[in-house]
């Protein structure tokens, strides 16, 4: 039986009078690609922020390999093995691509400030290894040769990839991707989809994904959770979600499910 990587139990986050996430249960097994979808303002990113430690949930637990992690600071959660990317790219723009990746590796390095001044043998070795590994990640995301560019000078797609490389450098067990294909054209989206799949297949990383592009979601997800107004309205395999009435209504409004059925009937009738 595969182990559960992340599990939330009745997770709630309240802003003033607004319950942004309302008693959401979610279980993601190891090496799965789990997607969270929902209309705008459904609480997807808030849910992400609760898992990655940006917010402390008012109620409920976040269990990472069975251990509760809610309330921990983000740097601690990161060093436990959860990394994330952001909906609007947030790189360290005045640093080079390589440096961004090495900063991502920060929790796995040990060099202290006095070692940096003394330049002892261990420190030099560690720095050299860090550069080597950063170059490996750079190559892995397909940005080899752009390592010495400042992050802000990279094209949009490359910045998205660099953000993922930075997240990968901390050797995470769970990777949270917040709309990785936002603003990409269809070819770039296809590339990114294949890339996300390879992360799971080649590196064995569990992936939790927020995505609006249904092609991407339906193509790679092992399980899909649908949020609407902070509550979970559906969960299951892509096929099951596509047929779910409540999901269709959440996206298209009440009555849309009936229309869609009619449409489907008409299609089968025509055929």
């Amino acid at each position, binding site marked *: 039986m595969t182990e559960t990587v992340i599990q939330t139990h009745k997770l709630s986050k309240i802003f003033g009078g607004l319950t942004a996430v309302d008693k959401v249960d979610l279980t993601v097994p190891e090496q799965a690609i789990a997607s969270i979808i929902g209309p705008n303002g459904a609480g997807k990113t808030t849910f992400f922020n609760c898992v*990655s*430690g*940006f917010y402390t949930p008012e109620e409920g637990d976040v269990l990472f390999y069975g251990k509760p992690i809610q309330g921990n*600071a*983000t*740097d601690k*959660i*990161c*060093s436990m093995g959860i*990394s*994330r990317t*952001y909906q609007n790219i*947030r790189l*360290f*723009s*005045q*640093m*080079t691509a*390589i*440096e961004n990746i*090495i*900063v*991502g590796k*920060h*929790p796995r*390095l040990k*060099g*202290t*400030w006095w070692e*940096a*001044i003394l*330049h002892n043998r261990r*420190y030099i070795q560690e*720095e050299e290894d*860090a*550069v*080597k590994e*950063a*170059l490996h990640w*750079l190559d892995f995301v397909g940005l*080899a*040769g752009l*390592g*010495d560019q*400042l992050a802000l000078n990279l094209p949009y797609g490359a910045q998205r990839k660099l953000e993922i490389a*930075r997240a990968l450098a*901390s050797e995470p067990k769970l990777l949270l991707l917040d709309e990785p294909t936002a603003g990409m054209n269809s070819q770039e989206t296809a590339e990114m989809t294949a890339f996300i799949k390879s992360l799971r297949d080649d590196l064995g990383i569990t992936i939790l994904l927020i995505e609006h592009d249904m092609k991407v979601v339906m193509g790679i997800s092992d399980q899909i959770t649908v949020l609407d107004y902070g509550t979970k309205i559906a969960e299951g395999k892509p096929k099951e979600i596509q047929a779910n009435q409540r999901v269709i209504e959440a996206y298209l409004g009440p009555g849309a499910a009936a229309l869609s059925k009619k449409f489907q009937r008409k299609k089968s009738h025509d055929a």
Partner: protein
Amino acid sequence: MRTSIKNGIRLGAIVGVVILFFHLTGFSVVASSMLGSLLANVDKGAAMEEIPALNLAVILALMGMIAGGSASKNKQNDKWSNSLVSGAVAGAFAGLLTGIFIFVIGFANFKEIDLRNYLPEIGPDVIDSLLFGGNAAAPYLYLALLTVSGITGAALSKGVIRADWRKKAQADSVQSFKTLTQKPGVQKLFGNKIAMYGFLALAALLLYFLPTQWGSYWNYIMGTVGIYILLGLGLNIIVGLSGQLVLGYVAFFAIGAYTFGLFTAPEPHAIGMNFWLAILFAILAAAATGVLLGLPILSLRGDYLAIVTLGFGEIIRILIKSDMLTDFTNGPSGLSDLTQPKWLGQTFNDVNFFHLIVIFVAIAIFIAGRLQYSRTGRAWLAISADQTVAKATGINTYKYKLLALALGAAFAGLGGALFASRNQFTGPEDHILMVSINVLCLVIVGGMGSIPGVVVGSFVLKGVPELLRDLESYRLLAFGALLVVMMVMRPEGLWPIGRPAMEAAYNQKHPKDSPPEGEVQS
């Protein structure tokens, strides 16, 4: 044509206002007197009436040429006629502005209205010299002079500075310089460690022998520059690298100076500690203060942090000065007769002290440089770029901010102790807010986060004012203008630095690890 005229009016207005400013502050008269000593037609200390009108005319003509030249510097002005029109309009507009001003003050003078009630610098004799010796036609002379010089400036700019033959010559010289630097021999020299050590040795030799030659005055000035380099390096860690805007930096300077002073001064405690030990204690005390201050306030960000630290700087100074602590700190009268360093039984003279400062600066540059490109330095930069993301990337932001503050404070503590020891005195008035602002300025002028920038910035902020002593009371005015011009021309600082090219360096070091595509190594 319309853009040429617009451009002309714009630059004419700017230069006209600058001339008015010079007139109103009385700088024009001082400048013509200085020009007099250059042209050798005025004796030193000569009265205002003895300055020939020619000098003022030369200055005005220069300003007009600047106006005309800059106005004609426009992409659309590739035609001679457009260039000249721009220059003429610029000169004429500047002339119009100043002409009206001259007419008004001349008229007021004629009516015997004492303008000094409103404009303190404009006395009758100043008006006389501004009117080319009380010439009634002065407004027309201004207009004519500035228009003609505007056209001349435009013609010079079009015909000489922007001429094709000159551009070509410039491009050629740049190209030949580039080919020179790309010759393998020269390249080797740049990358060569021996050459670098040779250069360093030369610099060390210069720094060793120069102080014995240039006298104690320059030793004092350059020593101050050195101490400001120390302060700048420390603040550069806090503001330039970790991005925490700390405005009360002088507090750490004061802690360093007073720790040193209290341990070595005969009054009020008479501990009589050894110089080197006292320096060490000063550094430690400043660093500890940094940590203690940082613990409660480093969760603040941006403006809030700036305000809190600003307050802290003032609190320290006022505490030192206060009656409450007079028995402990000697209050407003400060600490005097501080220990001078001794080495092998010999007390340091000014040359030795300068050498001591140079050694400390060298050590500080070494430490700051190593930190900057380390894991610690990267963490600082990440925090300054985006604190939230830095934390989510696994950086303990609180710890690193605290470390930056402690290390920065330690540099300031060393600077303060050296400053106090060299003056053999330290008092509350050494530790005013201006010190913090000066250090922040030199970090910004040099280029945030850049170590060579700090060095250059210190020379500019503490050295250049000394070079401007000839300007007498206009020294700080000119210095301020210089700073404005520098920041407008180079907003990123005088010597900004990029980030290291790690990929290129790695590939150069391990050429086998990255075989070209399509080739398989066997």
